[in-house]
């Protein structure tokens, strides 16, 4: 059975590399469509990390919601925007790159020091487990109000998106 642990560890490295490579692809690519592809790859890697963290349910939700829905929506936005030919010349950044790298390196260094200096003590006792059943019970009893609020937020966002995207069309037609 030790073989499976090694396979899981190798898969962990694979998902980690997938996450980082997707991220670099997303921020460094010249075309926006490649950036969305990098985002999808990176989110897939994060879904694998959720799997390693013991929550297959969230891994599946990550693939469904992020890789499925959000990336499709961003692709829609890319297609409605500029064409790739214009973007290839115009979009690529370059100004203030040194400053951005310095800012990011400073932020990462401070986060790294904070992470390595802090001692995180595990909880004395755990109640429940990581199962979907326990998540569902918590969601419907203890965190019921937050659950309802998030659905109201989603409904408001959908209505707002429709109104925002419609308003321009009516003005253009008149």
């Amino acid at each position: 059975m030790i073989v499976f642990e090694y396979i899981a560890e190798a898969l962990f490295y694979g998902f980690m590399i997938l996450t980082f490579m997707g991220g670099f692809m997303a921020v460094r690519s010249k075309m926006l469509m490649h950036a969305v592809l990098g985002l999808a790859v990176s989110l897939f890697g994060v879904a694998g990390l959720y799997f390693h963290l013991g929550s297959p349910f969230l891994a599946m939700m990550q693939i469904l919601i992020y890789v499925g829905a959000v990336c499709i929506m961003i692709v829609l936005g890319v297609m409605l925007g500029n064409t790739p030919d214009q973007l290839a010349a115009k979009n690529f950044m370059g100004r203030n790159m040194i400053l951005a790298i310095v800012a990011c390196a400073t932020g990462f260094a401070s986060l790294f020091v904070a992470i390595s200096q802090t001692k995180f003590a595990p909880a004395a006792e755990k109640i429940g487990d990581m199962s979907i059943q326990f998540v569902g019970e918590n969601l419907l009893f203890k965190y019921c109000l937050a659950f309802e609020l998030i659905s109201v937020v989603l409904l408001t966002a959908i209505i707002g998106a429709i109104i925002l995207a419609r308003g321009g069309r009516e003005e253009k037609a008149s």
Partner: protein
Amino acid sequence: MISGNLNTYLIISAILLIIGLYGMLQHRSLIGMLISSEFILNGAALNFMAFNRFVAPNPAVGQIYTLFIMGIAAAEAAIVISIIIAVYRKYRSEDPEQVQDMKM
């Protein structure tokens, strides 16, 4: 076995946050900035999941919070895409430097 260590996940999520920050600073289109914000949200969600697995007493809270982050991110993406469509109709451009004034 680094996959059973809390600090590994924290550093991965820090790198995700930094990738998002870099993209937010460097991208020159609104959609590129939206993509970068997704990275920042994912770094936060991975952080919550890591603490949920290794530290938290109730192992459902982190998963619920991560689900909420996904919901917020979906709503945010829908709003931002519709704003980008409206801005593009108005300005024929999605360069943030051209749309920084609110005057029509």
